[in-house]
């Protein structure tokens, strides 16, 4: 069997179920449907979405979400992995714990968090009250500053749900670090943080960099977290509305077939942004590869 023979099955599936629909989506972004007639709309769908003030809010939110997700959702799994790697006992148990939320259906997990975040009756504020600490409105916080408490709340929920995978991958990578490097660092008088900076991080550089890209790309596509936590994705004053949530709104929540074409246009814009970003990132990191 030839090389292409091996490929054909996957390529056909990609062709029918990924590449072709993507092309259709791109085409739809240049069309409009009125009264059963689909016609060429040129760039009018794009113009419409650029004119919408929520468009810019959505991009600002997506950026904010991505940065927050990097700080919380990217750094936390790495440091948890480092922590777990140091323990000599209960490793199997802790690894399972961390991965458990990944297994949960997202709706179940998010309904739980919706309850936790309730400002009056939720568990979190209950605990804060018992500790005599100020309570928060969590997901319902109205602020639109950078960062907003609402956004932070969404990121915390998303991190809980998704960090297991990254943690396990980091854990595996950490186990591959040769012990002698740490010995050598200690001989040079390095303390804990020095060792992390000069041994752990450089040794896992490749996996860190790859997961960073994957994380950013995945985060910019997050939908269900904000959707369920804020009953539609927008939050107060649209402060949790991400680009994907806006696409959903255009496509399904605002009624009217023409808006579906706007959703397609926004989808294409998002695709382009992600492609440019990934391309740029890969090109930059290529220079510093071994």
């Amino acid at each position, binding site marked *: 069997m030839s090389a292409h023979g091996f490929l054909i099955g996957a390529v056909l599936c990609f062709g029918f179920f990924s590449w072709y629909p993507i092309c259709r989506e791109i085409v739809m972004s240049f069309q409009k*449907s*009125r*009264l059963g007639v689909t016609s060429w709309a040129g760039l009018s769908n794009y113009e419409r979405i650029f004119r919408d003030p929520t468009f810019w809010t959505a991009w600002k939110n997506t950026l904010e979400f991505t940065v927050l997700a990097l700080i919380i959702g990217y750094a936390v799994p790495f440091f948890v992995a480092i922590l777990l790697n140091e323990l000599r006992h209960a490793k199997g148990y802790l690894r399972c714990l961390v991965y458990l939320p990944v297994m949960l259906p997202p709706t179940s997990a998010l309904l739980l968090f919706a309850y936790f975040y309730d*400002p009056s009756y939720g568990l979190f504020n209950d605990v804060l009250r018992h500790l005599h600490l100020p309570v928060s409105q969590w997901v319902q916080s109205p602020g639109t500053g950078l960062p907003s408490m609402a956004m932070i709340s969404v990121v915390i929920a998303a991190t809980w749900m998704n960090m297991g995978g990254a943690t396990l991958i980091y854990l595996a990578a950490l186990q591959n670090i040769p012990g002698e490097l740490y010995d050598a660092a200690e001989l040079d008088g390095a303390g804990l943080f020095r060792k992390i900076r000069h041994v752990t991080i450089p040794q896992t550089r490749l996996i860190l960099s790859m997961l960073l890209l994957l994380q950013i790309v995945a985060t910019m596509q997050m939908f269900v977290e904000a959707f369920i936590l804020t009953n539609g994705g927008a939050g107060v*004053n649209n402060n949790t509305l991400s680009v994907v949530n806006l696409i959903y709104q255009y496509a399904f929540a605002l*009624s*009217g077939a023409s808006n579906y074409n706007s959703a397609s246009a926004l989808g294409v814009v998002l695709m382009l942004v992600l492609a440019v970003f990934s391309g740029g990132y890969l090109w930059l990191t290529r220079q510093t590869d071994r």
Partner: protein
Amino acid sequence: MTISVDCAPPASAPQQHKEWLEDVALFEKQNPNITVNSIFENPCEVPASFTAMLKAGNEPNVFYTYFTDKNQVLDAGQAADITSYVNSKTVPALKDIVPTALAAVTAGKTLYGLPTVNYTQGLIINRVLFKQAGLNPDQPPTTWAEVEQDAKAITKLGHGIFGYGDYSAGNNGGWHFSSEIDAEGGHMINSAGTGAAFNSDQGKAVLQALHQMRFVDHSMSPTQQLAWGTLQKQMAANKLGMYIAAPDDIYNVIVPQDGGNINDYGMGPLPSTSGTPAGSLSGGNDYMFAKRDTPAQIEAGIKWLVFENLTPGVGFYNYARQKADGFPVGFPEPQMFTGATEAKQQQLMTKSATVNPAYFSTFASAHELAMGEPADAQAVYKTLDPVMLEVLTNPNANISQLLSTATGQVNQILANSG
């Protein structure tokens, strides 16, 4: 010949499922050349599914839509013209169908479907809490002043009980605001459909009443940003005195899903300053016909709809069977008919009633004018959500400013949709 019909109750709703299957069997016996292919789903319409199905053109022969979906279906070119198939012979109750319901499935002079459910909204009250607070549950409040008064009395009961509740998220805030302003005599959109009309005395009156209850009387809970589903739960748990809804909230949600007691609820008309609601946001569902249907299929579909949904005593209106199956009978919904057909419906309903119709008499006799939904309803509601939320969470909310900002946003939406 086969027709596919969706929105059939699935097996997870066992009694309705059984009744549907009985109806299909009976219909097929009466019409031996027609086979009904049921598509079981609940909820009947999921936005993503609906849009996808219209785009692919594979909706069932007879498919369920909300009144508000009309434009989407027409734009997708998926609605068949059934004007020539509908007359008083094929649809006996035709002249008695509420005009606004028929208008919802008509565009210009063309009829595209048959309405099956029509509702207006009223004020659902918790009779248990009313009695505990020393109020008369058979006389629900009709003016905002009375609502405020009764809400205060109920909130005094303590234990986390509040007198009044409303939505402010998930587009439901705007949805309720629409209804409240309609009752007040105002409008969401001007009659030409070109601009927002809610920045009016009526709009302000509604928001002021809500703001008063929340921040002056403290008869609304501090937890806001509520969306559909929450108020029903509070009502079922006897923690809420009043909220606005259509009657089916009681027998579709509060009792079966949230465990409420069927005899604990009553209804009055929508509150207004005058005490007589000028109208109510109304909505409903209908069935439309797929563009690809053959004439025979359209005729068969109409026969089925008349059998199942438009004849008192049969199918959906088989009250005797509903009572035997343990369903509540006696609710003033759907409000599909007028004239002789309505009289017949009422008579059959009273005969098999299991709840006391007196609990809903003030609502039913108000005969609220059905106002339909504004153009681009969902987008408009979404814009009003933050207004509702601000009024209910900010003690210093500037109502005039909120309404004028929202006016600008809604005008933009209407202009964009062209």
